[in-house]
């Protein structure tokens, strides 16, 4: 008997008991769906951590100004300036876990080149900012220490700004006006694309911190010597949590905050937050894995049970098949194929459900979607394996029947 014959006969008998078939496959359906969802959730979590790491630079946290309250109205974060360049220098000088602490100010402004203009983000930084964020220079140079010391009017511009102001022209060496102040373009940033949240990171102009504070953003967007943020880079991801604690202690000290009083700054540790979340999602993955395991086991036992029933019900058929020439291995393979067909059918439905479930999870819980072909392959292979494993014993039992006894069976 060829496998095609076996599959045809398997499909016949499964169709004959359609409801029973569907109920039997339920365990496999749930198990496989859980496998798909598990792999999908795990992969999505990892992908997001990686993409954020790439956007932000590795081992980064950001120190921001605290909130202020005026007349009971709480302003947003950064509304109460407290961070200074001195804070940044103290962090990098005194904390051994910190590799760099780059102060920066940010604002927005109109940039003009010739008769075109573009409204964009402005950021005043020192020479330590772009390296800390692992942000490369596509051509020209970055902001250097001397630019900041001399409060030079130089600008490093992002890819989007290049397109909007210069088109195909080479911007290096050209003069643009930012808030009416003329700047020489000295470099173009490597493109970073969009953030995970969809904002264009290439729509930005970097200028020296001192220049920004004195000439461009001073007064309205920057008050006094205060900076908007300090980007802190730890030596390694493991040190990030320590660094966060140490930075907090140091800044409270420097800002003379009494114990019991709240911080006048706060730290956004996105990497760690994401790691924690990825961990959480991994836990969810393990949970799904155990659901998958239990379901596949229960589903497998269900298949075994129904195959045993089927062998008993069809004892006469088995006897007849033996009488007309079926060997033990023909009967064995027929029933194993039937069990595998059963579990594969469940597997297919499970794949559909798992993909649907992952889509739903990514919609509802905001977990990214990552359906991998490997996961589907693994799930299908798993269900086939369950069919073989749990179908073997009933099939063996069928193949060992005595043809005479089997033919006599009522």
């Amino acid at each position, binding site marked *: 008997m060829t496998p095609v014959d076996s599959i045809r006969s398997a499909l016949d008998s499964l169709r004959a008991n359609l409801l029973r078939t569907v109920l039997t496959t339920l365990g496999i359906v749930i198990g496989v769906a859980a496998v798909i969802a598990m792999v999908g959730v795990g992969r999505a979590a990892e992908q997001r951590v990686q993409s954020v790491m790439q956007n932000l630079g590795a081992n980064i946290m950001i120190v921001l100004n605290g909130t202020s309250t005026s007349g009971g109205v709480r302003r947003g974060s950064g509304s109460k300036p407290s961070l200074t360049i001195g804070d940044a220098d103290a962090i990098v000088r005194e904390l051994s876990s910190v590799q760099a602490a780059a102060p920066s100010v940010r604002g927005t402004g109109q940039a003009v080149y010739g008769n075109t203009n573009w409204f964009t983000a402005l950021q005043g930084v020192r020479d330590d900012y772009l390296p800390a964020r692992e942000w490369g220079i596509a051509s020209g140079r970055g902001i250097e220490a001397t630019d900041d010391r001399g409060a030079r009017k130089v600008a490093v511009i992002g890819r989007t700004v290049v397109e909007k102001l210069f088109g195909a022209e080479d911007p290096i060496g050209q003069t643009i006006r930012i808030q009416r102040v003329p700047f020489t373009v000295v470099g173009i940033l490597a493109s970073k694309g969009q953030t995970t949240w969809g904002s264009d990171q290439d729509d930005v102009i970097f200028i020296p911190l001192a220049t920004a504070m004195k000439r461009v953003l001073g007064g309205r967007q920057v008050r006094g010597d205060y900076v908007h943020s300090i980007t802190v880079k730890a030596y390694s991801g493991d040190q990030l949590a320590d660094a966060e604690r140490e930075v907090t202690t140091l800044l409270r000290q420097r800002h003379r905050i009494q114990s019991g009083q709240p911080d006048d700054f706060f730290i956004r540790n996105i990497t760690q937050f994401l790691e924690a979340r990825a961990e959480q999602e991994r836990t969810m993955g393990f949970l799904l894995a155990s659901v998958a395991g239990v379901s596949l086991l229960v589903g497998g036992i269900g298949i075994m049970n129904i195959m045993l029933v089927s062998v008993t019900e069809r004892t006469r058929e088995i006897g007849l098949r033996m009488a007309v020439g079926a060997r033990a291995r023909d009967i064995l393979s027929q029933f194993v194929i039937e069990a595998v067909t059963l579990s594969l059918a469940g597997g297919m439905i499970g794949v559909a459900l798992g993909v649907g479930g992952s889509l739903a999870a990514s919609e509802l819980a905001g977990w990214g979607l990552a359906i991998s072909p490997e996961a589907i392959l693994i799930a299908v292979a798993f269900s086939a394996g369950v069919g073989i494993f749990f179908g073997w014993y009933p099939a063996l039992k069928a193949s060992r029947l005595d043809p005479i006894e089997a*033919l006599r069976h009522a």
Partner: protein
Amino acid sequence: MEDVREDGAAGPIIRVEGLGRDYPVGTGVVRALRDFDVTIERGDFVAIMGPSGSGKSTAMHLLGCLDRPTSGRYFLDGIDVSALDRDALAGIRNRKIGFVFQAFNLLPRANALRNVELPLTYGKTPRAERAARAADALKTVGLADRMDHRPAQLSGGQMQRVAIARAIVNQPVLLLADEPTGALDTRTGIEIMALFQRLNTEGRTVIIVTHEPEIAQFAKRILRFRDGRLEEDERIAEPADAAALLAGSARSAA
């Protein structure tokens, strides 16, 4: 397997020497069959008779290669099958023997054509050839117009014809029928016997196990069993003609 034939096509289809079958029961044994000697030539039509417990079923199982003897030797179409293992016996059954059962034993979910194809699926017949051969077999038994009917859509007589088509589809050397008319009314039973007689006339060797003398009267030879032994081997000079009987009753009814 034609090439391994020892005696050649001219030898007897069945040669049985001192065949015995014991079943262990508790501490003792039941000797279901002993000292069974018989030779059956090609083209014979044999009825095996006897009360229950006489050994006729055991004899049929042994002759059908469904069971293996405890003692003695059995040559089927020149091959010593008494020493073959289960799988080899399955091959012999597939190529050499066509079975017909009292309860038809058709696959309920398959149509007539696919039921008849079944023995071919266990042989080496190419898929493309199967349907044609099954269709031929169904034509032989007069069911050319019922090929796509399922067993539930057929009468008892038609189901037994499908079973007979299944038994002859692989061109076996021996047709072995176990109470083939037991589930049918008298007239339909005679129709089935007429079919067996026709197949026999066309050269097929037929063995029928029955306890009904009215059925055995259509055979050319009757083997009677009692208490596990072959008691009587009777040659019938002029067997009843089932087809003529049917024609006669049709005339008298008209």
